[in-house]
């Protein structure tokens, strides 16, 4: 009894978490096997795996999935590269180092919806300062509402601006943990900067890199608030990632059953990413 006392003490908390986390999941799973359009007078009916079968052939779903993955991949690459550079800058001691760090981390404090609103106002053609100055000083016509490529690039810039500090701080923690004697002996041996990066820094901060990739990957794949505010998914379907597509399907089309099926696939992908992160972290620790 005493042996299991600690487990008994956990029961209330675990039960509450199970209820909050698992109950909606199982309800959503149940809905995914039904055809239920909320505006229709027809009651929900069980249709087995029909929704999942439809999903596999649905060009809208597949397109949104691919766009989401592409966005996440490019966004993470930018955040990794720039985060690494920023981490090195933060490591150096210079005047205003502290203020620099504080200013750098300010975007993390901004709510996602506010980030989206802010960037929308900044980048909106005819209103925002960024397109104005780009046109006047560089002759670049930056219209995120009219050009798919520009809209996609803008979403990546926005996401990078928002989460670069996080990537930088994580990698800074890794770089700061590298033993100094190692760096000193490398300096004595006349190792170049690139060699130092390749043979010392990158291998020793592998854990942090993987952590950033998977943590940000999950977040970037799930992104909604910023994209919805910035572009609403447009122009066309350029920035209509899976989350945006799901939102319009459920809260405009009111196709609850099919939306639940897409949600289940979404959750599954995120769980797989979590599992990969866990495996990678465990392996690196070993």
């Amino acid at each position: 009894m005493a042996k299991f006392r600690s487990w008994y003490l956990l029961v209330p908390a675990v039960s509450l978490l199970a209820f909050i986390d698992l109950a909606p999941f199982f309800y959503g799973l149940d809905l995914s096997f039904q055809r239920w359009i909320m505006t229709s007078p027809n009651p929900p009916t069980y249709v087995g795996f029909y929704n999942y079968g439809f999903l596999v052939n649905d060009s809208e779903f597949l397109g949104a999935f691919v766009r989401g993955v592409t966005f996440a991949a490019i966004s993470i690459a930018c955040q990794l590269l720039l985060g690494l550079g920023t981490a090195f800058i933060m490591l150096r001691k210079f005047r205003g180092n502290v203020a620099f760090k504080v200013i750098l981390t300010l975007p993390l404090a901004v709510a996602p919806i506010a980030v989206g609103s802010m960037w929308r106002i900044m980048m909106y053609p005819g209103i925002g300062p960024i397109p104005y100055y780009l046109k006047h000083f560089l002759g670049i016509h930056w219209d995120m509402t009219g050009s798919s490529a520009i809209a996609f690039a803008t979403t990546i810039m926005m996401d990078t601006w928002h989460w670069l500090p996080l990537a930088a701080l994580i990698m800074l923690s890794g770089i700061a943990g590298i033993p100094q004697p190692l760096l000193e002996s490398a300096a004595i041996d006349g190792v170049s900067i690139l060699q130092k990066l390749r043979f010392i820094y990158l291998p020793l901060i592998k854990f942090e890199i993987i952590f950033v990739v998977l943590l940000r990957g999950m977040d970037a794949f799930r992104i909604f608030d910023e994209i919805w505010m910035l572009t609403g998914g447009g122009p066309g379907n350029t920035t209509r990632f899976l989350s945006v597509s799901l939102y319009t399907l459920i809260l405009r089309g009111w196709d609850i059953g099919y939306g639940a099926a897409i949600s289940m696939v979404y959750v599954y992908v995120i769980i797989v990413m979590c599992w990969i992160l866990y495996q990678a972290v465990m392996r690196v620790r070993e």
Partner: protein
Amino acid sequence: MFCLLSEEKKVARRQFLKYGGAAVAVAGVAAVGYMAGQGGAPAPTGTTVTETNTVTAGTMTGGPQVEGNIEDFLAKASGPYKGQTVRLVSESTASGMWLNENKRARFEEITGIKVEMELLGWDDVMRKQLLDAQQKGGAYDLYYIDEAEIMASRFDNDYILDWYMYADQHKDLLWPGFNVTDLIPVKYFTYKGMLAGPPFEHFIRTIVYRKDLFEDPTEKQNFKAKYGWDLRPAQTYDEYRQIAEFFTRPDQDLYGHVCMPNSMCIPCDMYTATGGYGIMNYGLATLGYRAGYKNGGRLDSLGAIAWLHRYVDLLQYGPPGLANFTWDDEGASIAAGRIAQGWVFTENFAYIQDPEKSPKSAGKILCTIPHVEPKFYTYSTPLIYGDAGVWAMARSGQAKEAAFLWNQYATCTETQIGQMKACKGLAPRSSLLYGTTLGEELDAKYGTNVYATIKRATREGLLMGPFPPMADEPVGRDILWKHLVDAAAKKVTPEDALTTCANEMDEKWKSLGYPDLKGY
């Protein structure tokens, strides 16, 4: 602070905190009591329109002659319901905002019934009321409905009451002088013989143009020199396009076209944008609920494809950001004086024609009947989209009687007179439009012809109604807008967009059990 006082005057810290705390507590109680005594919403601000609460003799002809006015009736009828609160969620349209600012407090004064109006964007309104209706939450007594398919859905799901039946069962609450059939959009909100409610707003979507630019001698001369015909409102698509091209001058922040290609609005735009050959019913066949041409529908017909080509082509003449424009952005662009010609809902005339709010557009905007291409003309008459809104009584509402009284007050003739004067582009009642000179007076006062256009549209049967009453329509709309915005962004050709859309839609209708032609 304490060290600045003399020894005699120094207050012990503990005493200071004691007396200070007591003072704060008393002040707090007083503040709470004051706020409780105030209650309700602050006094309305905004548009002030001077009007009488009785029908002005000399401007009304015909109509029922009833003793006493509606306010007297409401004051008596509301007796048992004093103190109740009517809650409604509605789109933040000009009429809704005007009623909120100018009539809500007066209604409360007369009846003792409070009205709480949540004025939100259309998407939020639909979401909130559908969730409330589905859960039978009773959070709202009235639901805003502006499309026939939404009405059909609400009726089919038994979320709203039949206004006719309710009026019949509560004759004591119906003002004898209330004429519901006088309201022009009543037919839009009648479904299987049931009425969702008396419409409180009615306006049209039509083409407008800048009078000052079209009448400017220099502009006229230059236009004639370039295109070979006299500048006037377009009567064909090609003329519209040439005018759009002529007036698109980004360096002057002037553009020749505006519409609403935003993902939420583009299905509505497809009814009206160019040519008058809008695709009704999402191109669905008259029988059979199929959209594809091969299945008897018209969504991917030659006319529809031609329409979409032209719609996409015209977007180049719009202001920056046009691809994201909603109906509000359209109106705002026109009000800012940036648009030489374009599409707009006349509800936006509330500020477009207001000299104080929009000095760049007030007095300069004229309406014109949209052009038509006979070879693509699929219906004999409808050219102008008639839009309207109603507050339907929620079955789960907690204050149905009070809501019924508010509905009458919001849509009675007296209120509608004030609304016409304030909003400058709304005309729900036939008797006011045709039986008075109010429309002509307002047109003359604001230098426009919106009421003349509305009169012509209703008189000549030019109005096309809203979407067809089909409860599953949101599913079709959700498929439709995605392909339309893809075409508008030039990611796919109009042919591909409409063909793919028609196929997807047919697949969806089939899966939902809607019959095709073979079923007949």
